[in-house]
């Protein structure tokens, strides 16, 4: 980004958009207001999260109690099982993590945190959500077509995905490709909006190092998404044509190459991990600084590690393919780059831990979520080394160890990070406080079962249990009684965890009506969104947009009596 240049402030006197009397439809459904669109993304993401969670429940029940009729689903046939795991993965990554972390928080936070009245292109923003919503419907519709939903795993490796004779889901696989492609288009539109807004529409006085980390990270994540998704869009077009028009891009019998898809997919697929990781990291940075009343340790280092991670993430993709038939010599290159990328991520974790030093830590609900994010993600991060090193990946590839590893990264990112953000910004979103007791109950009721789900799966993975098998009774080495016991532990923990989400939903919706009024700045935070009303009206600051005088993390500054120093207060 270029240096900020001086420009006439729009801080005062400009006639900001006003809240006109609007019908329900134009206010909540077809609004161009960034906050409403953020809520649309949030609620759609949550609804999809429930569906994805339900899928997880169905197939975990089948694994724990094979052949049992699963309450709420029925018999899980092998075809059902495959489409459940496939769509669980697809939904959780593309329709939960992306819309909530990037789109919902990006939409809500970027204009508020950089001090402007809306996204730079509100109508494109609305269009982005509409396309996204359609894509969600398209994906879910695949469960109701002849042949059922796509069951070739979320990576959709051809020839299985390309040829209905192999996948036996003639319509499901095409619908899957179309839904994913639509979703990418939605996020391209949204991402370009985020990037342009953050680059161009910053409040007067906000220099590059005054931008809150979460905005930086959402922007970098959007750039990563934008620069990596192209090959997969191209690949999706090719796969769709393989399925429906009769081309043979990925069919080796006619000169195609199935490995090509794997490269196109993972060239996007690995940066995608960082696309969802970075916003969650940013949310955590905002929360730990507020509740430790500390300046973020080494702001610039965090930025540089973010950029470093972003660039390196384009060089590591084939570590997903070590034993997938790539030339073995290439594995050396990708092992080295993969272990290199551990360095900036580790450094980022160190920075977060270092931020806690010398703080005054309040264990409120958002803070608990943020701390849990750091700790659980650490587990996810260190177990990734086993898989990034080619030698040990020979054994671990496609076992439950991989599965447990990426759930230890994606769960902290998509679920813990989201709950951290939602509980932290809830007062700003709805103007009410959430119930802290229920919040803590929900926190422990989610995090403890989460570990009980996936630690057994690490063990099972180490014992060689491989993925996407609907019933292990055909494999003598995998049907030992102790293994079945561990599967049942994981499943029961999952059911408990899903049940605990009811607490959250009760708290979330009841607090909207019964919660204590929050006021403008309940957490005594510095960043600009807390200077607007809660919830902010259309236009965010009707009385005039703020100016910025300092960085976002000036907590406990020695020159101040207050332990915080909002960005918009003149010195």
């Amino acid at each position: 980004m270029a240096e900020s240049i001086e420009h006439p402030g729009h801080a005062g006197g400009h006639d900001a958009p006003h809240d006109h009397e609007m019908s329900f439809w134009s206010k909540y459904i077809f609004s161009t207001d960034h906050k409403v669109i953020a809520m649309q993304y949030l609620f759609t993401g949550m609804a999809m999260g429930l569906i994805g969670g339900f899928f997880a429940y169905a197939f975990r029940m089948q694994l724990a109690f094979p052949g049992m009729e699963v309450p709420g689903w029925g018999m899980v046939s092998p075809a059902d099982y495959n489409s459940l795991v496939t769509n669980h993965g697809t939904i959780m990554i593309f329709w939960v993590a992306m819309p909530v972390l990037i789109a919902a928080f990006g939409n809500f936070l970027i204009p508020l945190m950089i001090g402007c009245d809306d996204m730079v292109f509100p109508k494109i923003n609305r269009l982005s959500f509409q396309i996204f919503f359609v894509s969600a419907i398209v994906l879910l519709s695949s469960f109701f077509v002849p042949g059922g939903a796509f069951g070739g795993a979320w990576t959709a490796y051809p020839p299985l995905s390309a040829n209905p004779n192999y996948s036996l889901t003639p319509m499901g696989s095409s619908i899957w490709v179309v839904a994913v492609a639509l979703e990418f288009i939605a996020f391209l539109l949204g991402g370009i909006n985020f990037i342009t807004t953050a680059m161009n529409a910053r409040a007067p006085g906000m220099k590059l190092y005054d931008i809150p980390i979460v905005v930086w990270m959402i922007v970098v994540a959007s750039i990563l998404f934008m620069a990596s998704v192209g090959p997969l869009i191209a690949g999706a077009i090719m796969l769709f044509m393989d399925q429906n028009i009769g081309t043979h891009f990925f069919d080796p019998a006619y000169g195609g190459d199935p490995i090509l898809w794997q490269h196109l997919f993972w060239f996007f697929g690995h940066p995608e991990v960082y696309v969802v990781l970075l916003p969650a990291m940013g949310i955590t940075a905002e929360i730990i600084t507020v509740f430790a009343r500390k300046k973020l340790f080494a702001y610039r280092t965090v930025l540089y590690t973010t950029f470093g991670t972003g660039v390196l993430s384009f060089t590591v993709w084939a570590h997903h393919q070590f034993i997938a038939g790539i030339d073995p010599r290439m594995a050396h290159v990708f092992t080295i780059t993969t272990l290199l990328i551990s360095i900036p991520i580790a450094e980022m974790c160190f920075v977060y831990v270092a931020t806690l030093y010398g703080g005054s830590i309040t264990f409120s609900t958002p803070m608990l979520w943020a701390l849990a994010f750091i700790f659980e993600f650490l587990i996810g991060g260190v177990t990734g080394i086993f898989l990034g090193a080619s030698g040990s990946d020979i054994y671990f590839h496609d076992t439950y160890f991989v599965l447990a590893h990426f759930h230890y990264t994606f769960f902290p990112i998509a679920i813990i990070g989201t709950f951290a953000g939602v509980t932290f910004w809830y007062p700003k979103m709805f103007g009410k406080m959430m119930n802290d007791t229920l919040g803590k109950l929900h926190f422990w009721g989610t995090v403890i079962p989460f570990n009980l789900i996936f630690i057994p799966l690490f063990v099972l993975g180490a014992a060689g249990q491989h993925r996407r098998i609907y019933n292990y009774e055909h494999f003598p080495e995998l049907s030992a009684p102790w293994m079945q016991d561990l599967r049942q532990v994981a499943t029961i923990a999952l059911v408990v965890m899903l049940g605990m989400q009811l607490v959250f939903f009760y708290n979330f919706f009841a607090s909207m009506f019964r919660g204590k009024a929050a006021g403008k700045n309940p957490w005594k935070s510095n960043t600009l969104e807390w200077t607007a009303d809660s919830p902010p009206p259309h236009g965010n600051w009707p009385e005039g947009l703020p100016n910025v005088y300092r960085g976002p993390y000036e907590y406990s500054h020695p020159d101040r009596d207050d332990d915080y120093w909002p960005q918009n207060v003149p010195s």
Partner: protein
Amino acid sequence: MRPIANTRTAAGIPTARLAVWWVLASEIVIFGGVLASYLMQRMGNPDWAAEAAATNVWIGAFNTFVLLTSSLSAVLAHHAAEHEQDGKKAARLLGLTILGGGIFLCVKGFEWYTEISHGMTIQSHPFWSFYYTAAGIHASHVIAGMILMAFVAKDAAKGLELHRVELVGIYWHFVDVVWIFLFPLLYIAK
């Protein structure tokens, strides 16, 4: 109504133009994905040249000429809109550009019709699969550009939103640049 955010230029460049550059960045990787896949396969299979020999260089060259010329009229439209503030002239020149796009598509359609009727269909050989896919994605961009330009020209003729003439022009030049690479990749390399 346009938000205040839209009028700010902290990055030193008008917001809309910045967004167009980002759109182009994302287009680069989309076309990059297709072309990288094509190049890998093509370089690994020298025998595809036999298929590529059946393409008609003259039609491809004519289409290159058409697109280059339409780019000229697009940049002249930009010139008229920005330096002469002449919306009507800009609209006329954009009309010419749309005409160029139309000719391009007609020629393309004729070319594809001939090829398909000679049995060179998208299924017949991987080369033709890539040929139709790459050119098809490009053609869809041409169509999108023509539609956008029609809207911009309509406004420009009334003297409104003249800065959009430049934006749609940048996009059109990009489509032109993609064709500049597609032409040797699909037609000349034998």
